[in-house]
């Protein structure tokens, strides 16, 4: 069998399509990386060549292959303080805007989804404790959900590999974790700070209890969904958050490929999306 090749025109065609669907734009310097992943997927799906593969990608009714491809083009790993600029945005910009508009002293509700093994919701808790001056003035409720029961158990347990905590400042690591033989155990106070739950965000009945949320972190999840599921997830989030509440997406995700329900807001640290006040 001849070796599979990706021509210059194939690359450009693919690049445009992938950009339209995901918002991710590959520069020509990424050509080698993209070709390599494409060839892997062509082999994996037994498509023989780019033409057949692209045809399947474009027209396959299930849309599954696009999700597989997004998976292979992105690095889906989770660790403490990943995309830290957004946590900085939370404590330096978002929360002050929310507290300024609050008319009562009800808790600030933050929903982190998917929880994965817990790095994100715990990072939020740590960030609030360490860097948010008003933490003593407000009650905060951190909720975190995932579709996978096993991963939730892991998150609740709060045991992490050295790799997972490698981006944490030493001071913070020492303060909130206990060193054990194989890794790090997060402290009991933080384990108690996050309420974990099993939720499929595509199921309206399961999402229904999540109301009056002020900030949703949904990073590096919707990019793996098809157009319909993305839009429906955005509809759910819209119902879950308060007017003026915020949605934070992953760094390679954009609401421009998901929904028109939210306003684009730029803070010094990040671009986030806001449910309009007049909604």
């Amino acid at each position, binding site marked *: 069998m001849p070796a*599979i*090749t*990706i*021509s*210059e*025109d*194939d690359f*450009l*065609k693919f690049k*445009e*399509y992938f950009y339209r*669907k995901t918002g991710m734009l590959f520069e020509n310097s990424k050509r080698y990386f993209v070709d390599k992943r494409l060839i892997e997927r062509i082999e994996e799906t037994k498509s023989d*060549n*780019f*033409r057949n593969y692209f045809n399947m990608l*474009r*027209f*396959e*009714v299930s*849309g599954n292959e696009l999700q597989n491809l997004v998976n292979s083009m992105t690095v889906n790993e989770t660790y403490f303080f990943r995309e830290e600029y957004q946590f900085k945005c939370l404590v330096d910009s978002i929360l002050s805007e929310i507290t300024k508009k609050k008319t009562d002293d009800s*808790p600030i509700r933050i929903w982190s989804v998917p929880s994965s093994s817990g790095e994100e919701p715990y990072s939020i*808790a740590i960030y609030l*404790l360490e860097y948010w001056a008003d*933490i*003593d*003035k*407000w*009650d*905060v*409720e*951190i909720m975190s959900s995932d579709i996978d029961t096993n991963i939730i158990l892991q998150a609740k347990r709060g045991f992490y590999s050295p790799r997972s905590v490698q981006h944490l400042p030493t001071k913070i690591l020492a303060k909130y974790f206990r060193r054990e033989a194989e890794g790090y155990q997060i402290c009991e*106070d933080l384990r*108690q*700070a*996050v*309420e974990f*739950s099993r939720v499929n965000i595509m199921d*309206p009945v399961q999402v*229904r*209890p*999540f*109301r*009056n949320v002020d900030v949703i972190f949904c990073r590096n999840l919707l990019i793996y969904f098809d*157009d*319909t599921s993305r*839009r*429906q997830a955005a*509809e759910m989030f*819209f*119902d879950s958050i308060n007017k003026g509440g915020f949605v934070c997406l992953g760094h390679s995700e954009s609401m421009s490929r998901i*929904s*028109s*329900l939210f306003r684009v807001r730029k803070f010094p640290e990040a671009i986030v999306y806001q449910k*309009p006040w007049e*909604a």
Partner: protein
Amino acid sequence: MAFIKKQTAHVESEDQDIRGLERDFIGLVAELDSDDSSVRRWAVRDLMPMPESSQPLVKRLTRENDASVRAAILNALAHLGDSVAVAGLVDCLRSEDAALRNEAIDVLKEVPHAVEPIIGGLLTDEDSDVRIFAVNILESLRHKNVEQWLIGVIEKDTHVNVCSTALDLLTEVGTEQSIPALNLLKNRFSDEPYICFSVDLALKRIANGSD
């Protein structure tokens, strides 16, 4: 520490209060005319699983001016996908409101089976704007006939912008089958630089695709 936990069951009872108690079909349809947009939006969301909802939702859509309620209605209609729902979505293509048109196009892209029986009529509609929007629907439609529909457009349509829109898509999905129609189009609009540019691009992509 200022972190608190709340049991979700508690939240659910609050939720019931916001959404009212009469959640049957007739009650929900009545709520579509509420003055409060969040009540209307919840009514739409709760009507979505009810198969007989298309008619009242389509009726509301024409008068609805809140963007979030409209988005919920379009989403519900795409989900329902019956002939009344699809006809309601298609009517939006004739709207003067650009946002509504584009939202309708977006959801129609996602229902290939519902679009299949009506796309032929839309692609030959007497209004060139509707023909353009019909081509826009094909943009992400996961249907094996897309290239054939596009070839039909560039072979016959006399409106330059309808052909341009189809041509844009053919640079992505065109195969050898499109070559004669592409050449023909370039001859028909040889004085239009945009058409010539796009035809050349489409032909180049077809010729230089790797086997």
